[in-house]
């Protein structure tokens, strides 16, 4: 995994819970190019703990002088976002992974319909300048519960095609009506809560949208759970996965090589064969097909409950 050592140069609160961070090269060198929808993995050394969180890049892809991300503080989370808000200081040098795009625009689309739920607006902040430059037809629907959560509005370019939906003001997004009114060749992109993504996908497919025109992204954070034991057959070692730890983190702590990219159940890199399972796997990823779940596990987000799990690592 290749990464860059970048300096934190700005930290701007955008809303009560969302802060924008800007990273630049310590010697002001140009950064690798990225496309709208890309994310970076941010490494946080938090005392004994190492957090690695994926954040979508929100800056204009044509700006090669810095990478910007927006982080929503999750007080009930595992600590990564709290570290970003509370422990980072301007001038600090942090390890930032190279940009990876799992949510790229399909440029064959006639129109791009972007649906953001709350902080899910982040990938669209980089895609909109790209679409505007291409002269492509697009529409952003930005749905939040309360008006103060519209943190991204000031970051959108002047004249952006944005429709705001504030639930508390009785202006909820009418997905069925919106999707039914789209011209041929429209692609749908949804970045939101799991519930909203499911609703958008189900509505689109029920209306006859083909799968290829429906895109979504949601990074899961590994949820804490019961500690469990795992036997790694290839390395012939048995590990304990702590309550606050993911299986992937336990493998890394033991020095067992496991490929990864998103660490959020979306990209498929860490897919691992299950050789034996005396218990039940708690699958939490968006990667495995239902039929694969008996014999595969995504160590980044999924856990195990039972006597012993044997995996091919």
């Amino acid at each position, binding site marked *: 995994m290749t990464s860059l050592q970048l300096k934190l140069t700005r930290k701007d609160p955008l809303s009560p819970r969302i802060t924008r961070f800007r990273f630049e090269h310590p010697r002001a060198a140009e950064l690798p190019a990225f496309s709208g929808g890309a994310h970076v993995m941010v490494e946080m050394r938090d005392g004994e703990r190492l957090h690695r969180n994926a954040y979508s890049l929100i800056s204009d892809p044509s700006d090669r002088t810095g990478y910007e991300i927006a982080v929503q503080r999750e007080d009930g989370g595992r600590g990564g976002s709290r570290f970003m808000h509370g422990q980072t200081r301007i001038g600090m040098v942090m390890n930032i992974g190279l940009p990876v795009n799992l949510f790229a625009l399909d440029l064959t689309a006639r129109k791009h319909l972007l649906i953001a739920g709350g902080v899910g607006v982040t990938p669209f902040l980089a895609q909109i300048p790209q679409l505007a430059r291409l002269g492509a037809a697009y529409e952003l629907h930005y749905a939040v519960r309360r008006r103060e959560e519209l943190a991204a509005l000031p970051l959108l370019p002047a004249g952006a095609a944005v429709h705001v939906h504030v639930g508390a003001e009785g202006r909820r997004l009418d997905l069925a009506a919106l999707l*039914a009114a*789209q*011209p*041929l*060749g*429209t692609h749908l992109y949804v970045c939101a809560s799991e519930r909203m993504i499911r609703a958008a996908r189900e509505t*689109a497919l029920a*209306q*006859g*949208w083909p799968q290829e025109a429906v895109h979504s992204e949601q990074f899961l954070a590994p949820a804490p759970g019961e500690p469990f034991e795992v036997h790694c057959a290839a390395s012939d070692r048995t590990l304990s996965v702590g309550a606050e730890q993911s299986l992937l983190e336990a493998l890394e702590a033991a020095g067992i090589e496991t490929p990864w990219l998103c660490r959020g159940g979306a990209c498929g890199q860490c897919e691992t064969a299950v050789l034996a399972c005396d218990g039940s796997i708690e699958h939490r990823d968006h990667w495995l097909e239902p039929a694969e779940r008996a014999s595969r596990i995504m160590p980044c987000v999924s856990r195990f409950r039972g006597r012993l799990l044997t995996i091919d690592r």
Partner: protein
Amino acid sequence: MTTVPPSPAIASRPRHAPLVPRPCGAALMVADQAGAAALLTLAGAAPGIMSRTTVLLCAAGGMAGAIRAQNPARLVQIASTAELPAALDAALRDARMGLHMFLAGSEGLIGQARAIAMAAGLPAGAIQSEHRGTMARRMQCVHCKTIAEEVATDPYDCPGCGRALFVRDHFSRRIGAFQGVCVDAETPGERPRPVEIRA
């Protein structure tokens, strides 16, 4: 009914399968005389769909009554595939995402209708096709670009440049035609005897 197995060598060879109902906001069905029966089977499997369906029949006057009896929202009849572009443009002009297209009949009808619909923005995943009737193909000469309709033999003589053309499984989705390549380029005059296209 003939379902053509994909040639293992040529990835672009269109794959056809029996039409199956799918959730859709509206439907556009296109068939020729042989394909219309596939639409009747589909209508039988998904009775609710016809009230949201435009049916476009191409040189299939004999099936118009049976299709009309299914009460489609609209029935349009055209005399030949030459009228297909104008008829499809009209049907797709105000279409919205959620439209599903069902094509049934010859390779020529299917290929041409699919190319027009995709040029109008309809995603490939919203188009189903079932091959019925003739094995003849719609061919494009790769040398002079002339399109020949209903080519029944391999090789065939290009109506544009006169070359004897080998009927390939290579298919252009954009043009909606198989590709015909000069069969005797290496050995001028040595042409295999034309045989009927059977798959």
